């Protein structure tokens, strides 16, 4: 009989802590988003956001950057993961590569974005290099453009995809690929029909991680936008730190939360392999 209560003892403290400092604060935000300073239940805050062109533009920029970051991270991260798992021969070199991959993860977004601020500036290394090669003849504007934000975001989030895909790739049973090629499949067909589907869960896990981090990122867009581009998280921060409109800020927070959860749920569906029972 005593045994039945054990999970409660073990889980009690963390659940209480999360109820008090996670659920309760979020409920406060949800409630604030549905009320106004004068009191009374209202959808005015949401109407204000959804009826306004400017907000749709910000939402569009936020999710465009999020989707583009995710797509580029996967397109680039997959080959890098492949290289690390399948091509690298010497264990010490793989070790160095993994450290190179993980060090940025362990470094603050500011430090990393700051590095790009220096390199993407008018007289930064990137412009120098592009002009040196002759691709452009005048310095290009990166800071304050979506391209600049995208370069910084991909940089910050790429390691997540590489680790997720690399992990999945390392688990693929070589016998499956062997069987495919023994049965006459070309390497491309083996990759498309055997290897890629087996790594799909890793790809989806990495994509969800990158997407949620990209749409909620604050530091990187704030530093690389130069004040010219706004994303949702920047609007939210403004409302809470300088405008002090908790009702409107709350509605913005809930909008970001809901859009993110919808995207995550949609990606979760792709992750289920076709034909599997689940």
């Amino acid at each position: 009989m005593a045994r039945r209560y054990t999970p409660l003892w073990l889980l009690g403290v963390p659940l209480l802590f999360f109820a008090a400092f996670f659920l309760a604060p979020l409920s406060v935000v949800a409630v604030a988003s549905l009320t106004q300073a004068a009191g009374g239940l209202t959808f005015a805050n949401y109407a204000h956001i959804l009826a306004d062109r400017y907000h749709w533009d910000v939402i569009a920029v936020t999710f465009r950057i999020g989707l583009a970051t995710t797509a580029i991270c996967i397109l680039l991260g997959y080959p890098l993961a492949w290289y690390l798992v399948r091509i690298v021969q010497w264990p010490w070199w793989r070790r160095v590569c993994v450290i190179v991959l993980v060090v940025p993860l362990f470094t603050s977004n500011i430090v990393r974005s700051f590095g790009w601020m220096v390199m993407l500036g008018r007289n930064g290394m990137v412009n120098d290099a592009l002009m040196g090669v002759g691709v452009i003849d005048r310095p290009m504007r990166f800071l304050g453009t979506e391209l600049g934000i995208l370069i910084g975001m991909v940089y910050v989030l790429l390691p997540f995809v590489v680790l997720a895909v690399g992990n999945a790739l390392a688990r693929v049973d070589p016998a499956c690929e062997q069987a495919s090629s023994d049965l006459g499949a070309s390497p491309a067909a083996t990759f498309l029909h055997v290897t890629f589907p087996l790594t799909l869960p890793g790809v989806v896990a990495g994509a969800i991680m990158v997407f949620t981090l990209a749409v909620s990122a604050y530091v990187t867009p704030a530093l690389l936008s130069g004040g010219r581009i706004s994303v949702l998280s920047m609007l939210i921060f403004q409302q809470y730190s300088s405008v002090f409109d908790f009702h409107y800020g709350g509605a913005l927070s809930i909008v970001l939360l809901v859009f993110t959860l919808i995207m995550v749920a949609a990606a979760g569906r792709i992750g289920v392999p076709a034909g599997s029972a689940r």
Partner: protein
Amino acid sequence: MIVRWLVRLVAWALLIYLVLPLVVIMGASFTTTPYLTFPPQGWTLDWYRQMLADASYVSAFVTSSLLAMAATLIAVLMTVPAALALARYDFPGKAAMSALLMSPLVLPHIVLGAALLQFGGYFGLTRSFLALLIGHTVIVAPFVLRSTFALLSPEQRALEEASSDLGAHPLQTFFLVTLPQIRAGIVTGSIFAFISSWINVELSIFNTTADLNTIPVKLFNYVQYTIDPTIAAVSGATIVVAVLAIVILDLTVGLDMLSERK
């Protein structure tokens, strides 16, 4: 063969892309010029000296370190038992409880930061070390929970039952039988927890003041207005901390996460 070389080229280019900004910052922090430049002109440690002479940087380093250590410690004490409960017992509402404890991973931190600010405002729980600590504990807990849970397998039950059949107290069983098997998960989770607290801006920014600041928030506020080599030196110091953490991780549990499983 051509594809193989293409993959190689892409991979090398990406590895350079990943290291370059860090190398630039480290390099720029040694320059003797009063502005940031890379490659550095000359070679000096003055900017590091200046950082250490500035009491506000030193106190921010102390705050960040204490905060990250305390949040990690509390997260371990709370989530290791939780992981045990989730792995060893079946009870109603289990899926919902584990989803709740993991959800800070997908929740935008800026939303949680704003929520805690507004909520804490009702109790005067804002702009204090405790307010920072509570928020950081919430966001780092899932890292420890996830990596500890991953190492708890059903096969360990037999050993635990043997231990209790032989008369060990449940706590003895935990410390002598279970803990050694999940230690690596706790260490990995703790390091990820420590680091995600150590680099957090989105949550801390709502609760920091001029006197109570963390390194990332201080850097963030500074970088938006001024850029000089002191910033590079402070950044360089945080990169050194990151590399140290990784070396510790590599030496204790091994970082070889990408080798093909035999």
